[in-house]
């Protein structure tokens, strides 16, 4: 079996626009959650969020592709920025990077040109909601006096010489919102012509996307892949949906940094976020031959479904435990060889309890691993959440440091949560687990490369 390693990390999070910023933020022990600033949310009970700092997408694409940034929804922009960070950290001279550096001969030392047909792209995505402001600016051109939409003038001009309502939408409007456009834009910028997929399984998307891309490398269909997931839920429709689903805490508006308390006895709900990550994963021999920095090795993967209705977790923890055990058995290791687990840890009491049930079915032995959930730091970024978790796992192994459990001051019974970075004992394996609202589970087991 071909071995697959992680050689590049790019991320977008409330802590910044790179994986280094993200890691530094986690190590600081302070939450990235603040007041919800992306729009006026005064009409909602929860008004806090993890917001990515301002950026210009055109700074992250080669000149020849700047025009295309006009047809990128926020989720796509996040993926483009994360992918830029990933290929830079992997020193992968994709077409986009060659253009940025002004030609193959101008590449810094250590950068390697890759065969585009051997590079895949697999980026998890959410349901990208149309920008409300943009859409409504067109809808009002075909409104009835009672504020309903006039379908007739939406479809056809009311009088000759005028425009129909729909003509107020840019012709390429639909393309901004197709979930596969995260992978498609990234694949064009970096010229990745290998297998390309878009997994849309909510918060489990990134791990499942990594799984699928890893399998294409293992079976020989590709040597390298850009993988991950990105999403922004920090828009009015996202906040409306998650409010109605009663996922959000409503007690943290005065103290956003403390709003989401994952795996904590005082947890009262999660918060919305935006962000995600793109990683470069690569066949081991290729990575070694080009002298790449190896952050971690992908040791085992698991997936399962809860079979429960939306919004209800698998209270037994059984299905998640199955996915975790699958990852362990693929890696041929026992539970006592895991030093850190990063579970979903939304800060929603019932879901957190299910996470711990699952962990206990897998890890009953001593010494107990550290358990660190990141939603208190970043919020729930939908398809981006597990991508951030995987980056944290890779950084933890690379830096041999367990990040602190931000906002888990009074952990639920039976788990060890560090309150400060831990560097005392070696880290060999880190297990990342995610569970979507729709019941898809994904586990990724990383190990220190040796």
């Amino acid at each position: 079996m071909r071995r697959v390693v992680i050689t590049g990390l790019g991320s977008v999070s409330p802590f910044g626009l790179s994986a280094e910023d993200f890691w530094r933020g986690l190590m600081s022990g302070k939450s990235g959650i603040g007041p919800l600033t992306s729009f006026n949310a005064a009409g909602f009970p929860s008004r806090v969020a993890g917001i990515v700092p301002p950026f210009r997408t055109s700074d992250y694409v080669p000149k020849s592709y700047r025009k295309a940034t006009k047809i990128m929804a926020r989720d796509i922009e996040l993926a483009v920025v994360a992918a830029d960070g990933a290929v830079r950290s992997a020193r992968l001279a994709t077409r986009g990077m060659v253009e940025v550096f002004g030609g193959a001969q101008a590449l810094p030392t250590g950068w390697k040109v890759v065969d585009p047909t051997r590079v895949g792209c697999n980026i998890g995505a959410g349901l990208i909601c149309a920008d409300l402001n943009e859409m409504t600016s067109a809808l009002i051109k075909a409104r009835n006096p009672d504020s309903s939409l006039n379908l007739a003038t939406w479809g056809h001009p009311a009088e000759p010489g005028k425009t129909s309502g729909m003509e107020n939408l840019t012709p390429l409007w639909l393309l901004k919102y197709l979930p596969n456009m995260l992978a498609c834009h990234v694949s064009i910028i970096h010229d990745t012509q290998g297998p390309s997929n878009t997994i849309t399984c909510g918060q489990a998307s990134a791990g499942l996307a990594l799984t699928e891309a890893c399998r294409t490398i293992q079976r020989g269909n590709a040597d390298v892949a850009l993988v991950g997931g990105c999403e922004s839920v920090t828009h009015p429709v996202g906040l409306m949906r998650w409010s109605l689903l009663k996922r959000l805490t409503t007690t943290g508006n005065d103290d956003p940094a403390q709003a989401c308390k994952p795996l904590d006895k005082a947890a009262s709900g999660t918060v919305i976020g935006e962000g995600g990550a793109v990683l470069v994963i690569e066949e081991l021999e290729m990575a070694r031959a080009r002298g790449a920095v190896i952050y971690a090795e992908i040791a085992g993967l698991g997936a399962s479904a809860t079979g429960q209705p939306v919004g209800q977790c698998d209270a037994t923890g059984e299905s998640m435990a199955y996915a975790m055990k699958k990852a362990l058995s693929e890696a041929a290791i026992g539970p006592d060889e895991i030093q850190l687990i990063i579970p979903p840890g939304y800060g929603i009491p019932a879901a957190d309890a299910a996470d711990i049930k699952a962990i206990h079915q897998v890890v009953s032995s001593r010494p107990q691993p550290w358990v660190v959930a990141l939603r208190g730091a970043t919020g729930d970024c939908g398809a981006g959440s597990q991508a951030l978790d995987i980056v944290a796992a890779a950084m933890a192994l690379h830096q041999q440091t367990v990040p602190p459990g931000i906002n888990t001051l009074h952990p639920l019974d039976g788990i060890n949560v560090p309150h400060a970075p831990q560097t005392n004992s070696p880290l060999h394996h880190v297990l990342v687990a995610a569970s979507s609202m729709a019941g898809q589970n994904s586990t990724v087991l990383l190990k220190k490369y040796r």
Partner: protein
Amino acid sequence: MRNRVVITGMGWVTPLGETLEEVWKRLTSGESGIAPITLFDARTFPTTFAAEVKNFQLPERFMKSGRHREISRATGFSLEAARQAWTQAGLPEAGAPSAAAVDPYQVGIYLGSGDAALEFVPFTTTAISSWDDAASRLDTVKWGTRALGVFNALREIEQEPCMTANHLSMEFNARGPTFNCLTACAASTQALGEAAEIIRRGDAQVMISGGAHSMIHPFGVTGFNRLTALSTLNDNPSRACRPFDATRSGFVIGEGAGVLILEALAHAQQRRANILAEIVGYGSSADAYRVTDQHPEGRGAVVAIREALRDANMKPEDIDYINAHGTGTKENDSTETQAIKTVFGPHAKQVPISSIKSMMGHLIAAAGAVEAITCVLAIRDGMLPPTANYAVPDPECDLDYVPNKARPAKVDVTMSNSFGFGGQNDTLIIRRFSNSS
């Protein structure tokens, strides 16, 4: 040693009907499922017709549990399609005696299902009434306050593309690896290919796979109309979709679901299942060209087709029939023809190719699944469905498109192509099952 992957059950809900045999009979008679839109008032839209699933009602059996109350149209299609497939495969109902039951963790799901429609009237009315004319922008405070009282939590979350898999997981007690991919029009071909890979590597014994989608709603038609991708031949809906014809002018939106039961050969044989066909090849690629256009020489399509052949250890001469992506747009059909010629060389002229989108429209994410089922039925009956509405040859499309009339033929190996908006391409090769190979 990888597992062989066989198909043991199939089901579909389509614009041409809702049973395997009824739809197949219509396809092979060249019937059209395309007609004026009834799901909303589209009379003033640039395109006024589509291929709708007619009078769909969710079967009673799905209502009892109360778990599927607020499902989307496409999820409803998928439940019925999956029920047909599960029944044909002879798999035990949930709650069957334990001797017959399959380990739920050995049953996975891999769908290429699309996101569902917004709740159109509440959504547009709430948006319009929250517009601040003076500031010329949406007042999000107004919108938020209203929206929380207007929208229904379940109907909102049911729009997520992963919800179809959630409902199949509950209905069939499938707890194994569960995926939904949404690679536009290539999604369910990709789902079938990747589901087969999951069985090949032993991560599940049974996969419920395929796709479901409906974009026949005002914003769906708006989106494609703005892209000028749809045929606007409003006077003649049943003749509007003309794949490979010189007068083709765009695709026709369809809706529906196709679900197949894939199974490890040993598992199927052990329970003496009736084996319908075998999945032997899968290829996937990206154009990496433009989000608005296919690569003009079909670069990505060529790679997907070649990879599928390599995966199946086959030569172009081994392929008896190609079920084309064949959307009926100017661009797709000539590019696809070019790609087939590039891979097949002189043999391209010998292979019959047809597009059932000429009759059932383009089921978008679900298209690949119904086309895979069509391939299995073509093998079963030695019958090729036609490309309907073919009249005027196009010099850029000069292959054998099985024009207008179904054709009896020896069919052992079929290829099915799907190419998505944005440049993701997938090809699947399905073969007549033979124990020896």
